[in-house]
């Protein structure tokens, strides 16, 4: 415990004794984190936009015009009892016309006469639980005698899911690559600081310091720089996102996900990447240095 406290203090001290290097590491790591953040926020927003389309895991079962209210009630019960149907909503032909007229506001006048001779059939909007069993459910619903026709946007939804997956994979690669770049940069920065501390390391080894004793302060230093960078990048990305969101709203009328909703995952992501890049990056260099015979007692002469 004494050693832990001492080594932690040493790591903290080292940040300030190598202030230039620490600042450079902090800067580079922050830049990487900001890029990671931008990429993540972009994906999350794309995801959100796609979600609304994907929620079209809805099939519409159009009901034959001869169906009575009793038939409709019976159908509602039947859909409710079906395993793969999450929810069913009845849309009467009047409601369908109203919704159609509203969505085509410019031609509202032209549709006025349709009120007396509504061509739109009543329907049930069925939300599917498990998309993999979509086809079975589709067949089952189509087989019901009172169902005229079943329509769905299944193919479109599937394509969008595929696109979303692709974007997620690409962005995951970007995040991964940037995290690796951060790790590499930190590990090189530590190599430079380590060089300036060769004598110290060699003295430590001569008096019987274990490798862990030597490595630990470097790791503390790396982790702390990682955390500082994470904090700075968090506030930077907040500022960037807030402003970019405003610009998008003004120009395209597109609403982005409020940052408050993404705060925690972004903070956690930054902290984790910062700590891993800082901690593992420094550990990697110093371990490699020690294992290749660095810090030997006569090394720094």
């Amino acid at each position, binding site marked *: 415990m*004494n*050693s832990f406290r*001492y080594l932690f203090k040493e790591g903290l001290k080292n940040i300030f*004794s190598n202030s230039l290097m620490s600042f450079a590491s902090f800067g580079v790591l922050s830049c990487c984190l900001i890029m990671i953040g931008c990429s993540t926020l972009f994906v999350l927003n794309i995801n959100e936009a796609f979600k609304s389309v994907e929620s079209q895991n809805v099939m519409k079962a159009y009901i034959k015009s001869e169906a009575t209210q009793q038939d409709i009630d019976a159908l509602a019960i039947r859909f409710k009892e079906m395993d793969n149907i999450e929810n069913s909503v009845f849309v009467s032909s009047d409601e369908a016309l109203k919704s159609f007229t509203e969505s085509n506001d410019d031609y509202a006048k032209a549709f006025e006469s349709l009120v007396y001779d509504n061509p739109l059939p009543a329907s049930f909007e069925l939300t599917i639980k498990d998309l993999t069993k979509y086809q079975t459910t589709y067949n089952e619903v189509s087989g019901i005698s009172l169902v005229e026709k079943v329509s769905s946007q299944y193919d479109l939804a599937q394509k969008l899911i595929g696109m979303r997956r692709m974007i997620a994979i690409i962005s995951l690669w970007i995040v991964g690559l940037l995290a690796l770049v951060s790790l590499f940069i930190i590990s090189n920065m530590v190599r430079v600081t380590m060089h300036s501390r060769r*004598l*110290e390391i*060699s*003295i*430590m*080894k*001569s*008096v*019987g*310091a*274990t*490798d862990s*004793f030597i490595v630990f302060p470097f790791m503390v230093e790396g982790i702390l720089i990682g955390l500082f960078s994470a904090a700075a990048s968090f506030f930077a990305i907040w500022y960037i996102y807030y402003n970019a969101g405003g610009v998008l709203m003004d120009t395209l009328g597109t609403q982005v996900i409020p940052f408050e909703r993404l705060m925690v995952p972004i903070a956690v992501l930054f902290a984790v990447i910062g700590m891993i890049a800082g901690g593992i990056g420094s550990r990697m260099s110093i371990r490699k240095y020690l294992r290749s015979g660095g810090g*030997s*007692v*006569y090394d*720094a*002469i």
Partner: protein
Amino acid sequence: MVQLKNVSKVYDNGTVALKDISLSIGKGEFVFIVGASGAGKSTFLKMIIAEEKPTSGEVLVNDYSINKIKRREIPYLRRTMGIVFQDFRLINKMTVYENVAFVMRVTGASPKSIKKRVPYVLGLVGLLHKAKCKPNELSGGEQQRVGLARALVNNPSMIVADEPTGNIDPKLTYEIIELLSEINRRGTTVVMVTHEHELIRQFRHRVVVIDDGYLIADDENNSVPDDTPEFYDYTAEYKYSMNKFGPDSIADSGKEGDR
């Protein structure tokens, strides 16, 4: 303490540093290791501190076999000894006190024991009043005394000193050897590498002479006459004796009858 059995060392570049050396240093001894530059003294020291492994033969130090020692065991071997360097090797950003305390921290000593032991050891080398100074505020002799305090602080069973007087004023040299002798009188083994033959004449300790990788003499009684002139060349004298009487005549005076 230290045992070398038919030890040879050949470096990767083909340099033969030690040739079939056998030697034994017992507990509480004070041994001077003498030899010209490039004779193999440093390789000998490096083996003792497990920085190098022998190419052939066997080296035993404080119950550790240097041939078989694992990387993770080396720190524990080094904690059984204190190393004193020619260039002091003090950390300039730390005070004298911190330089000494640092060694205790490495071994996980408690702050309480550090507070007790460090002033005691600094007192022993006469530097308690300079505890708050930085190394670069001290003279060479004082810096080396800090080096000695650092080597002593963990109460090692052996001090390994690599030309500890090489970088200090001749007047202060005797002070350092006096201190080492005092430490030795208290029971600590001292192995000191030097090429200052004058010191060997002044301090009557065992002398081991290495030349061109060979152990050419192991003179337990330090039999050089008192009236030898200043800057007397030990190596040359032993080489001369060896040519005159053959290697056996010198080895006979050695403790273990090596070589």
